[in-house]
């Protein structure tokens, strides 16, 4: 690691987003280390997607600061965007383009052209096990294939960090397992991953977790630390406990 490279993939300080006077995310202080798979958990409406959208510059925070891959995302979102990948629940694929064309398009959008593109596209097809369907229209792929294509499209430019917003929603268990193996391999190679999920088996695969509840950060740590703090056996029980508190607060 050179001195210029930051130790943290993401640092936020007092990050806050308000919609019409109601806080969706409240005073968030997060630190995600380089090469870490960091899970952002919480019930629906707890502020996970809002957080990711602020960190990718899709929406501007009401107050607070966020540094992503060492760059202030509020001030220079375009600089950040060159070095991150983003995969949403909706995948963002073009159904009327083939697998290869989708990859080529996103490569081109990130400025990966010429020799670099000729090298990267076959490499991505192979790494994400997409080669057999390279010339099939993306719209005709099943969920697991689409999901891997979306991840491949978001990483062709070899980003330092990827945001995965519920990447495995509605995908079968075998595909999810393969997907997490692929993420693990990339993280081991130094890519930082920030992922949101509702699957607790996936949460337990993360290096560290952060729990959000109604916009507040209420716990950060490894899965083992978190379960110990809540005095329960599994991450799932932490989750259910949180949801119970949320509903209690609303009632």
């Amino acid at each position, binding site marked *: 690691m050179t001195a210029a490279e930051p130790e943290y993939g993401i640092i936020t300080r007092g990050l806050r987003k308000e919609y019409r006077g109601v806080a969706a995310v409240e005073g968030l202080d997060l630190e995600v280390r380089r090469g870490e798979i960091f899970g952002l958990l919480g019930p629906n409406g707890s502020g996970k997607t809002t957080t990711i*959208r602020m960190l*990718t*510059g*899709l*929406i*501007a925070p009401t107050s607070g600061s966020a540094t992503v891959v060492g760059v202030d995302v509020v001030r220079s*979102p*375009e600089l950040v*965007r*060159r070095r*991150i990948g*983003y995969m*949403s629940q*909706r*995948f*963002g*694929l*073009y*159904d*009327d*383009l083939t697998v290869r*064309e989708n990859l*080529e*398009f*996103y*490569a*081109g*959008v*990130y*400025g990966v*052209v*010429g020799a670099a593109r000729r090298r990267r596209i076959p490499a991505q097809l192979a790494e994400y096990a997409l080669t057999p369907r390279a010339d099939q229209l993306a719209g005709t792929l099943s969920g697991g294939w689409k999901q891997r294509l979306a991840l491949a499209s978001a990483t062709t430019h070899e980003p330092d960090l990827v945001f995965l917003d519920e990447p495995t929603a509605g995908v079968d268990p075998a595909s999810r397992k393969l997907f997490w193996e692929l993420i693990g391999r990339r993280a081991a190679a130094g890519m930082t991953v920030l992922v949101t999920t509702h699957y607790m088996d996936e949460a337990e695969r993360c290096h560290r977790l952060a729990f959000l509840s109604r916009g507040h950060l209420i716990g950060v740590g490894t899965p083992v630390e978190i379960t110990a703090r809540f005095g329960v056996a599994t991450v799932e029980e932490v989750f259910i406990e949180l949801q119970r508190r949320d509903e209690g607060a609303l009632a």
Partner: protein
Amino acid sequence: MTLWERLTSLPFWAMLQKEFIQMRRDRGTLGMMIGIPAIQLIMFGYAIQTEVRHLPTIVLDESRSPESRRFIQAMLNTGNFDLGGTAASRGEIEQRIAGGEARAAIVIPPDFQRDIKRGRTAQAQIIVDAADPLASAAAISGAGLAGAIRSQALAASRGVGGGIEVRVRPWYNPTSRSAVYIVPGIIGVLLSITMIVVASIALVRERERGTLEQLVVTPIGKTSLMLGKIIPFLLVGYVQITVILLLGRLLFDVPIRGSVATLYLVALPFVVANLGIGLFVSTVVSTQAQAMQLGFLLLLPNILLSGFMFPREAMPEPAQWLGAALPLTYFLEIMRGILLKGTGLRVLWPEALALVGFSVGLIGLSVVRFRKSVE
């Protein structure tokens, strides 16, 4: 990085390539974009041809002679005029045409037969309600032709000079805008419709499918995104122009008196301006249905105020100002100038310059309005 590398690595090229692939795959839309102008033109053309026939006509025969009756019969035989009664005075003709009861009148002065017999030029008058230029044009030319033929027949049978002079009086629209005058306008109107609608849908479709959210987090610039989106439609625009020009020429004898090269050159800023309007629409709306509605809403002033249907000189001033804010108004001037009068840029440069201004302004406005965010 060299300038060349910088240029070729622009996200714009990826966008352009993607749009071309998608357009090629979407055969239905592509077919419609090219088929619709053809169908519209043919419908328009035949509507023109059927409407001009059988105008309800009143007759004021002050001559009451065999020659006058023969002349009236010749006019009715053209099929353009249907006898709808007789009038007793010129005042009555005015009243009945103004009231919409009749659309044309044949007036024959008292000395019609006497003039013919003496070898002098006999005069007859055809009055046509030209407020609807589509309806009146062929009737007017048909009347002139029938008069000429009757003159020749007279000359042949009597071997004397003179004949009949038919004086056609188009009322309400003295400049007499003919069907040929309308067809060049169709090119402009159809281009406006399709370009505004396809461009407005293009961006909104990405928003609806969720791919825009993906694009927004990539380093692609707003200008690359929007130009890459619309440039493929430029080609569609040019195909449309060509189809309409060819069909107009083959089916309706629309002349091309000026330079086709000039026409294609000036069409560029016009098409870009309309794509700009479409892009602007897509920055305002959030669904494809809304985009369509707003697109068609913008279409009405284009048809009504641009001078396509009604002469702008006859409009009240506020309507003229609104018309002056439409790219189509200038394009119509140019099209009519090039196709019908054979004029070139030496005369039409102010209109061409206005179109360039519109295209730069509208694209710029859309780029400024478009936000790379999802709020």
